[in-house]
C-alpha cells in the first residue's frame, strides 16, 4: 500500500550512501517521501520482472538495465547515466606501495608466493566482472585467474584486504574511498575495461509527475555534488 | 452378552485362537500362564490389537467382524481398560487423570461417582500429585479409578490388583462385586490369583500357549487337570452352589444348604433364601472314619469316597460325594494307607467354618 504514496527507488547496493543523502535532501526540500531498496542490481531486476511496484531503477551496470529494458519493464527513453566509477587496485595500508598497471605488470611477483587478489565474483558482481574484463584485455587473466578470489560483494572483498587475508583487491574507487586501512596503489587504465556506469531509468507505468520530480532531482546539481563527495566519476 | 471368536498370529511364532461367550453382566476370568495370550485377548476386545480373523460382539454391538469389514475405533467401544502397566498421563495431576475419562463419558443411568471411587481406592490424598511421584501400587489404583470413571459399558482388567497389598485388595474386591451386580457391568478379568477369580468370576477361560483349553463356569474349568500347575496345588477345591438357610447373628455365622447337606460359614451378606457359592479347598478338608466328637471343626459332613488318586510327593486326592454334591480332599498318602481309604467307603468330611469362602454369584452364564 505504501508503495503507492511514496516513490520507491530500486538502487544498486553500491549507491546506498549517495542515494540516502540525496533522499534526505529531497525530503527536506519538497517534503515528499521517497523510499529506497538497496540490493544487488540482479535481484532488483528480477523483482521488477516479478512485478515489484518500484518507480525508479538505478543499476550498477548496463547489463541489468538492458535486461529490464529488454523485458519491457523500464522506459528506455528515460535512461540517464549521470555517474560512473573507476576500477582501482588496493592493498592493506601498511604494505601499500604504488604500482602501475599495464600490459607488462608482473602480477606474480607483485602477489608473492601465495598472495591473492580479492574482488567481486567475476561472473556476477559488477566490480568482479569489470576486473575480469580489464585483466583479460591486458592479457593477464590466465596468469592471475588462479589467484583471484571472488567475494559476494565489493564490501566483502574490501574486508579481505583490510584484514590482510588477501594481498590486494580490485574494487571501485568509491569503495576504496570509504574503506579504512587500505590504500589505492593503482588505477586500471580506463580503456582496459568497459566504462563503469550507473544507468537510471523510470519503471514502465510509473512515469508520474512525482516520479519525474525525484528522477530529475537524482541527476540535478545537488545530487551531483553528493556523488562527487563519495568518489563517483560525475559525468 | 459378549461373544468373542478370534484368531491372530504375532511375529515370532505366537498365535492365538479363542472363542467364548460371556453374559452381559458378570465377570469372566482369563486364566493362564505368563505368555498364554491373556493380554492379547483383552487388547483385541479394546481394539488395540486387530485380530486376523473372527468377530467380537458386545451387547449386540459388533466391535469387530473381519468378514463384514467392521472394526470399531477404540474410543467408540467404551471399554474401561486397566492396563498391565498403569499408563497414567504424566502431564496431568492424579485428579485430572481420573477426570479424563469422566469428562468424555456419556451420561449413564447409574454413574460411577468420583467421590466413591476416590474413597474406595484411598487416593484422596494423592489428587494433586503427578503420576511420576506415585508408588507402584498408588499408580495402579489411580489407573483403576480412571477406567471406572469413564463410565464404561465393559471393563477390561489386566492384573489390576497384582501390585496391591492384601488389605487394599480386600477393599477393592467387594466394590468390583458391587459394580458387577448393581451397575451390571460385564468385566473381563486377568489375574494370577485364583482367590480373586473364584471370588469374582462366574466364567473362566483357560489359555495355554494361545490355545483355549477350557471355557465355562469357574467350577468346571478349575476341575481341569491341565490347569493344576497354573492354579497351584494348594488352591484346588470344590465349589458348592448353596442357598442361605439361616443367619446366626450372635456368632456371625450363616448356614448354607446345598444338595446333600448344610455348611456353617462366616456370615454372608445375603438374605435368607438367596443363592451363594461356597468354595471349599481340598487342602482344608480332612477325613474321619467315625464322627469326631468335641472338635472345633463345625462342619462334619457324612460323605462317601468316590475315588482315591495317588499323586506325586506325599499327596493323595480324595473325591467325596455328599449326597449329590462333590467335595475334594487332599490328604497324605500315608493317611490313605493308615485309614485304608478306598472308593465306596463311608466317611466324615471335616471342614472348618473359617476355611470356607462364600460369595454371591451373579447371573450365571447361559
Amino acid at each position, binding site marked *: 500500500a505504501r508503495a503507492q504514496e511514496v516513490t520507491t527507488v530500486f538502487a544498486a547496493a553500491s549507491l546506498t550512501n549517495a542515494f540516502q543523502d540525496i533522499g534526505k535532501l529531497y525530503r527536506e526540500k519538497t517534503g515528499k517521501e521517497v523510499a529506497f531498496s538497496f540490493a544487488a542490481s540482479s535481484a532488483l531486476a528480477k523483482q521488477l520482472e*516479478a512485478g515489484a511496484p518500484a518507480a525508479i531503477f538505478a543499476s550498477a551496470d548496463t547489463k541489468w538495465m538492458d535486461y529490464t529494458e529488454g523485458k519491457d519493464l523500464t522506459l528506455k527513453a528515460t535512461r540517464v547515466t549521470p555517474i560512473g566509477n573507476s576500477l582501482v587496485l588496493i592493498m592493506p595500508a601498511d604494505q601499500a606501495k604504488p604500482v602501475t598497471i599495464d600490459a607488462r605488470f608482473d602480477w606474480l611477483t607483485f602477489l608473492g608466493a601465495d598472495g591473492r587478489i580479492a574482488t567481486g565474483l567475476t561472473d556476477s558482481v559488477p566490480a568482479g566482472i569489470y576486473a575480469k574484463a580489464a585483466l583479460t584485455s591486458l592479457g593477464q587473466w590466465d596468469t592471475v585467474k588462479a589467484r583471484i578470489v571472488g567475494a559476494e560483494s565489493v564490501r566483502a572483498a574490501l574486508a579481505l584486504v583490510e584484514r590482510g587475508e588477501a594481498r590486494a583487491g580490485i574494487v571501485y574507487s568509491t569503495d576504496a574511498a570509504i574503506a579504512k586501512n587500505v590504500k589505492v596503489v593503482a588505477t586500471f587504465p580506463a580503456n582496459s575495461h568497459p566504462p563503469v556506469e550507473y544507468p537510471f531509468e523510470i519503471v514502465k507505468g510509473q512515469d508520474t509527475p512525482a516520479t519525474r520530480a525525484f528522477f530529475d532531482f537524482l541527476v540535478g546539481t545537488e545530487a551531483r555534488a553528493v556523488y562527487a563527495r563519495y568518489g563517483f566519476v560525475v559525468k | 452378552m459378549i461373544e468373542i471368536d478370534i484368531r491372530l498370529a504375532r511375529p515370532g511364532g505366537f498365535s492365538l485362537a479363542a472363542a467364548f461367550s460371556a453374559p452381559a453382566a458378570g465377570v469372566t476370568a482369563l486364566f493362564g500362564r505368563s505368555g498364554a495370550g491373556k493380554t492379547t485377548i483383552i487388547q483385541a476386545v479394546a481394539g488395540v490389537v486387530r485380530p486376523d480373523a473372527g468377530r467380537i460382539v458386545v451387547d449386540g454391538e459388533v466391535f469387530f467382524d473381519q468378514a463384514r469389514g467392521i472394526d470399531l475405533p477404540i474410543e467408540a467401544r467404551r471399554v474401561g481398560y486397566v492396563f498391565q502397566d498403569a499408563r497414567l498421563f504424566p502431564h496431568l495431576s492424579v485428579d485430572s487423570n481420573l477426570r479424563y475419562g469422566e469428562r468424555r463419558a456419556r451420561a449413564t443411568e447409574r454413574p460411577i461417582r468420583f467421590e466413591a471411587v476416590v474413597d474406595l481406592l484411598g487416593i484422596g490424598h494423592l489428587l494433586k500429585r503427578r503420576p511420576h511421584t506415585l508408588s507402584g501400587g498408588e499408580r495402579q489404583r489411580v489407573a483403576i479409578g480412571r477406567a471406572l470413571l469413564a463410565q464404561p459399558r465393559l471393563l477390561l482388567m489386566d492384573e489390576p490388583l497384582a501390585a496391591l497389598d492384601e488389605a487394599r485388595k480386600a477393599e477393592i474386591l467387594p466394590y468390583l462385586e458391587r459394580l458387577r451386580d448393581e451397575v451390571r457391568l460385564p468385566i473381563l478379568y486377568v489375574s494370577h490369583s485364583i482367590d480373586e477369580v473364584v471370588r469374582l468370576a462366574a466364567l473362566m477361560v483357560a489359555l495355554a500357549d494361545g490355545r483355549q483349553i477350557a471355557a465355562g463356569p469357574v467350577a468346571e474349568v478349575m476341575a481341569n487337570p491341565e490347569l493344576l500347575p497354573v492354579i497351584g496345588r494348594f488352591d484346588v477345591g470344590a465349589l458348592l452352589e448353596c442357598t442361605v438357610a439361616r443367619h446366626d447373628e450372635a456368632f456371625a455365622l450363616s448356614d448354607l444348604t446345598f444338595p446333600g447337606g448344610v455348611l456353617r460359614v462366616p456370615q454372608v451378606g445375603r438374605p435368607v433364601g438367596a443363592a451363594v457359592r461356597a468354595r471349599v479347598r481340598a487342602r482344608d478338608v480332612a477325613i474321619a472314619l467315625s464322627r469326631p466328637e468335641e472338635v472345633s471343626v463345625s462342619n462334619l459332613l457324612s460323605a462317601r469316597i468316590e475315588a482315591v488318586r495317588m499323586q506325586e510327593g506325599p499327596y493323595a486326592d480324595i473325591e467325596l460325594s455328599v449326597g449329590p454334591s462333590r467335595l475334594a480332599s487332599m490328604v497324605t498318602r500315608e493317611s490313605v494307607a493308615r485309614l485304608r481309604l478306598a472308593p465306596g467307603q463311608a466317611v466324615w468330611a471335616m471342614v472348618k467354618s473359617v476355611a470356607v469362602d462364600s460369595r454371591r454369584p451373579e447371573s450365571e452364564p447361559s
Partner: protein
Amino acid sequence: MLTPEEWIAVRLSLEVAFWATFWSLPFAVLVAWVLARLDFPGKGLLDGLIYLPLVLPKVVVGYLLLLTLGARGAIGQYLDAWFGIKLIFTTAGATVAAAVVSFPLTVNAIRLALEAVDRGLEVAARTLGASRLDVFFSVTLPLMLPGVLSGALLAIASALGEFGATITFVSNVEGQTRTIPLAIYSATHMPDGDAMALRLTVVSVVLALGALLLAGLVDRRIRVMIGRA
C-alpha cells in the same frame, strides 16, 4: 544508542520473527504429525519438499518465492486479485520468507518430540473415550510441547538471521522489509557503516539470548507440567 532507522529495523525484525513463528507453528505441528503418524504414498516427497528451503541457497528460495508469490507470480497474482494480499515489498512478504526458511527446522524439531511420545498413552486416552483429535490435543500435544517450543525457538532464531530469501523476494525497503540482517547489509555499504553493523549484530545477539532465556523458562515450566523435569 540506536538510531531511529535501527530501531525500525529491530522492531521490524521482531515483528517478522514473531508472526513468522506464529503462523508457521500450527502448520509445522500438522505436518510433523502427518509425517510421524500417517503413512501414505508420496510421503517421501512431502518430506523432501519440506527440507527444500534448507537445502537450497536462500537466494534461490527467495527467487522461487518471487516466481510463485510475486505480484505476477503463479499464486501471487491471485492472492492480490482475490484477497488483496500483496506480499512483495511488504512486511507480510518478509514474514512469509522467514517462515518458509525456518519451516524445515521447526517441523524437524516437532517431529522428533512427537515421535518420542509414548503411543501407549494415546491408546489409553482412546479407551477413555477420546477421539483421535481429542487425543492429539489432550495428550500428544502437551507431551510434545518441549519440541514445539524448541521448534518455535529455532523459527525465531532463523527468522532473526534470515537474509538471502528476504532480500531476493521482498527487497530491502526501510520500515517494510529491512530487518536487522538487511540493515546490516546496507550498513556495510556505507562509509560509517561498521559501527552500525556491529551495533545491530549485538542487538541480534541480545534478542536471541533473550528469546533463549524466555524459552528456557517456558521449557522448565512445561517440563514440570508434563512431569519430565
